[in-house]
């Protein structure tokens, strides 16, 4: 349990953002890093600077015509109507200067993290700016231009033929981009737990989406009811993730750790607290040790309550990645710095207080529906994996 954990990051990766009035704001990365540092959890020696992804890296999963469009957009070239067909310059994915460069850096970070873990230089690695799971082969979607996990997995498969990667996505939105990239690949197991697509973007992620051809059974989707709380979230996670991962037998786990299932998140309707965001990485960590020699790469993802939720959720993630205990109290220097900019009161503790989030009236009904989804899912996929 004591191998080296690295934090793959540099300032360039904080350039990936769409402006201060857009929900996807890289200031959340800064706040998280400073919180980790202030709590004494993150030291200079743990940082690793990645190289940006090359065009060739990107083309492992993205169409070259698309990569060219993103490059043009970043230089102010290209017809806006034409770019909109690629999802660029829309409300969700506004074009900003050097958009290609910024996103290639993020992809490079996740790719670098995956290589360090695969070749044994690090036991676990975290790339907090990664997790751009909606990006499609030829289209930007849901704040995601390039798909960092997709590129990292595709590259690992080239560099280590036969490697089996388990992708575990607990962002509140379905991990559609990664799922479709490996939908017929039995060497890549994608597991996504999310708020049901009937109620939330992108709309996919039904239990029935199981993969196709040789990959049939290797796409696993656990859609949860809106307003699902911690107990049911954790129960559902425990019923599905360990079982399917054990049946699959990965060589490496790549997790997408979006924290937008938190009850305060403005973009979605689950009702989780920091308990979920502490539980999930600790369990993924244990599973990595149980199943694949500890090889675990963790990325960030969605998370749009950037003041109260994201810094604490991803500090808990880093604590799990780096085998450390998270202190109880938020540090004063951090609070006094960020409370100046925050429009809301910042929490004083690193963990939410369960008493503040009692079960809602429909909790039993929601739990029952999630339980049935879990049952249905396991019956569908377990016989197919392995």
């Amino acid at each position: 349990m004591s191998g080296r954990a690295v934090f793959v990051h540099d300032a360039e990766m904080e350039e990936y953002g769409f402006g201060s009035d857009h929900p996807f704001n890289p200031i959340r990365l800064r706040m998280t890093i400073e919180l980790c540092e202030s709590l004494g959890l993150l030291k200079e020696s743990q940082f690793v600077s990645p190289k940006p992804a090359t065009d060739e890296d990107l083309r492992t999963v993205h169409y070259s015509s698309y990569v060219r469009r993103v490059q043009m957009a970043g230089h102010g070239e290209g017809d806006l109507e034409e770019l909109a067909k690629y999802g660029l310059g829309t409300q969700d994915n506004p074009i900003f200067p050097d958009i290609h460069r910024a996103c290639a850096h993020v992809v490079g970070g996740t790719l670098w993290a995956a290589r360090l873990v695969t070749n044994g230089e690090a036991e676990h690695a975290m790339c907090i700016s990664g997790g751009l799971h909606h990006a499609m082969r030829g289209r930007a979607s849901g704040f995601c231009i390039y798909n960092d996990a997709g590129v990292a997995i595709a590259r690992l498969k080239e560099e280590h033929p036969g490697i089996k990667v388990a992708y575990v996505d607990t962002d509140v939105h379905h991990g559609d981009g990664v799922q479709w990239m490996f939908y017929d690949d039995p060497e890549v197991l994608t597991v996504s737990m999310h708020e049901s697509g009937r109620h939330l973007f992108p709309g996919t992620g039904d239990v029935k989406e199981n993969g196709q051809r040789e990959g049939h059974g290797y796409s696993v989707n656990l859609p949860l009811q809106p307003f699902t709380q911690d107990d049911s979230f954790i129960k559902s996670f425990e019923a599905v993730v360990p079982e399917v991962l054990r049946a699959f037998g990965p060589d490496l786990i790549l997790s997408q750790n979006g924290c937008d299932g938190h009850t305060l998140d403005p973009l979605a309707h689950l009702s989780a607290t920091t308990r979920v965001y502490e539980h999930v990485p600790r369990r993924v960590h244990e599973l990595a040790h149980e199943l694949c020699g500890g090889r675990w790469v963790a990325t960030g993802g969605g998370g749009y309550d950037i003041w109260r939720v994201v810094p604490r959720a991803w500090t808990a993630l880093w604590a799990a990645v780096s085998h450390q205990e998270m202190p109880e109290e938020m540090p004063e220097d951090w609070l006094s710095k960020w409370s100046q900019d925050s429009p809301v009161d910042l929490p004083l503790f690193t963990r939410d207080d369960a008493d503040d989030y009692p079960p809602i009236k429909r909790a039993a009904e929601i739990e029952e529906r999630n339980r049935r989804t879990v049952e249905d899912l396991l019956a569908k996929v377990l016989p197919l994996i392995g």
Partner: protein
Amino acid sequence: MLLVRDWMAREVVTVEPETTAAEALALCRKHSIRHLPVLEGGRLIGLISDRNLRSATPALGDPSRAEALQRIRVGDEMIRDVTTARPEDPVEDVAAAMYERKIGCLPVIEGDSLVGIVTSSDVMKALARLVGVHEPGSRLEVALSDRPGSLAGIAEITRDAGVNIVSVLVAPGPDSAGQHIAVLRLATIDPGEIVAKLGEAGYSVLWPPETRLGEGRP
């Protein structure tokens, strides 16, 4: 988009009145189908299903079964009064015919010739396509009052927000009083601003619940 010609199968396996029950059943098995149009001189004169044939022949294991399968001809057992569809018929008409007459399949006729066949699973596929998810988007459910421009108002608000509409369905609400419910899919991960604007314009938004807009953002 929702016409029979877009959803029917064009490769149709057919039989003749003289085809034996054994041959017809073998065709059903081979092509995994349950209905065979019966043609005579190229014209549709009937329809036979695997069910018609099974009920006309002795059960599996009955010694007289093999002989009966060879003896019975499709023409003896087929339905002669066949409900058919035209390629330009709307899918919903076909769905209504299937439902009212409790049938699972309609041969599709153009002029005198058989041009296709449409089954209940084709109709289900069309329905799934209508309500399905083919592009990433967020679901929006809004109650519409019974006055002109109610739907247009929603479209204007989404346009002003710079967001594309992926699909729209409008259906009468559960209460009869002329109220309709519109279900839209919007090409955005963040419909919050649109929901707030709809609220300001007096619309009752049934989904998503209004989030704490602006709160928690810089």
